[in-house]
């Protein structure tokens, strides 16, 4: 269930929660290390490694040259040799220059070696738009990474989940892609919405993969989403509650493995499904969730809507980006439309 924050509890941003998990695992296991562009002296351009250099030094917190192929390849090799690398791909959009390392080596070497090696590697990457960074720095690409068998795919929406999922990602013996939304990190220059900053226990805890979280319970519609749009869906649900529409909001938390059961269970209750995604509409998360639901619960399903990024390059101009990126009103309208 959702983590509620009380006045007496200290809160953390999502970035600090992630760093806390990485630091803990690094203290526990000498094989854990971090490498990526600007992750050491700068602390990660989205604060994902802020403060780690001071504690662990340059041997374990390594800045690398701008060659995603070489350093992701080095991560795969280190993982196969028994280390537990955390490799940051600065923007998910840049995966293309290292596609062979990610798609063919990281994802498949466990299988191709007949299980003689495993790849316990975390590929940590920043995703998402809403800050006018144009078509090559604003994508989520959730579907691109979740599509390929072999990698687990994690998308946290708040600090509590980010920490528990990071602990689990580092301990997992399979390759994990950990996709954090820039807007949720708590950066001074990119203020987060209400919600991602939560109470976070000091002690380590692992959130298992494949367990969606019902962030809000409701009877009238099931809203399935992830990442930043969990918070937009929750805001829409509050608005709808004032109109007497009671929406349930499911945060998938991991795409691979996907908690289909949680979605089906909710749809059997509400009969109405709205899937909200910041990735492109076609061949993506929204289509996958709708397909699985129709396969398993067609008889319970009365209405379906998808709310996603249209199939266009994400515009730089603020009014245009705001137009294509699903907003609170888009979610609310979709939930209203399935009530009819």
């Amino acid at each position, binding site marked *: 269930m959702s983590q509620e924050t009380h*006045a*007496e*509890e*200290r*809160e*953390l*941003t999502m970035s600090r929660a992630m760093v806390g998990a990485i630091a803990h695992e690094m203290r526990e296991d000498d094989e854990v290390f971090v490498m990526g562009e600007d992750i050491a002296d700068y602390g990660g351009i989205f604060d994902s490694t*802020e403060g780690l250099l001071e504690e662990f030094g340059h041997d374990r917190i390594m800045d690398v040259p701008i060659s995603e192929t070489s350093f992701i390849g080095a991560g795969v090799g280190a993982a196969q040799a028994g280390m537990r690398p955390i490799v940051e791909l600065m923007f998910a959009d840049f995966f293309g220059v290292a596609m062979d390392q990610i798609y063919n080596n990281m994802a498949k070497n466990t299988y191709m070696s007949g299980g003689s090696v495993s790849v316990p590697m975390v590929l940590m990457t920043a995703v998402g738009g809403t800050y006018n960074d144009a078509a090559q720095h604003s994508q989520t690409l959730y579907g691109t990474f979740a599509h390929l068998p072999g990698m687990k795919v994690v998308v946290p929406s708040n600090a509590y989940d980010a920490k528990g999922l990071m602990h689990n990602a580092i301990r997992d013996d399979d390759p994990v892609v950990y996709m954090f939304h820039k807007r949720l990190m*708590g*950066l*001074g*220059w990119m*203020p987060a919405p209400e919600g991602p*900053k939560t109470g976070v226990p000091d002690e380590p805890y692992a959130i298992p993969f494949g367990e969606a979280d019902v962030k809000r319970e409701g009877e009238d519609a099931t809203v399935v989403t992830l990442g930043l749009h969990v918070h937009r869906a929750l805001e829409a649900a509050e608005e709808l509650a004032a109109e007497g529409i009671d929406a349930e909001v499911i945060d998938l938390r991991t795409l691979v493995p996907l908690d289909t059961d949680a979605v089906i269970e909710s749809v059997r209750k509400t009969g109405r499904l709205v899937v909200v995604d910041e990735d492109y509409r076609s061949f993506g998360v929204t289509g996958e969730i709708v397909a699985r639901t129709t396969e398993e619960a067609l008889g319970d399903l009365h209405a379906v809507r998808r709310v996603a990024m249209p199939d266009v390059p994400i515009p730089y101009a603020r009014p245009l980006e705001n137009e294509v990126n699903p907003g609170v009103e888009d979610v609310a309208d979709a939930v209203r439309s399935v009530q009819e």
Partner: protein
Amino acid sequence: MSDETVAVDSADYWPEGSEDVDEGIVANWFVRAGTRVEEGETLCEMQVEKVSVDVPAPAGGEVSEILVDEGDDFTRGDPLARIRSA
């Protein structure tokens, strides 16, 4: 024993090299009014130009008041919060 209120003075944590700047913003609060804190615990993150600084509690006690909201500007020397030490 008497209660004493201690102000969290932004000037005390001003980053080195930013002496010629007088404006900052509070990027994140990690406590709310009512949170109990230990001396030295991080209360908030302030930013001066693009330099982030963690602001520690100058005394232990209860955060009685947050004076600059998250995302808001302040001027060097403005108190950011008050702590009631017991």
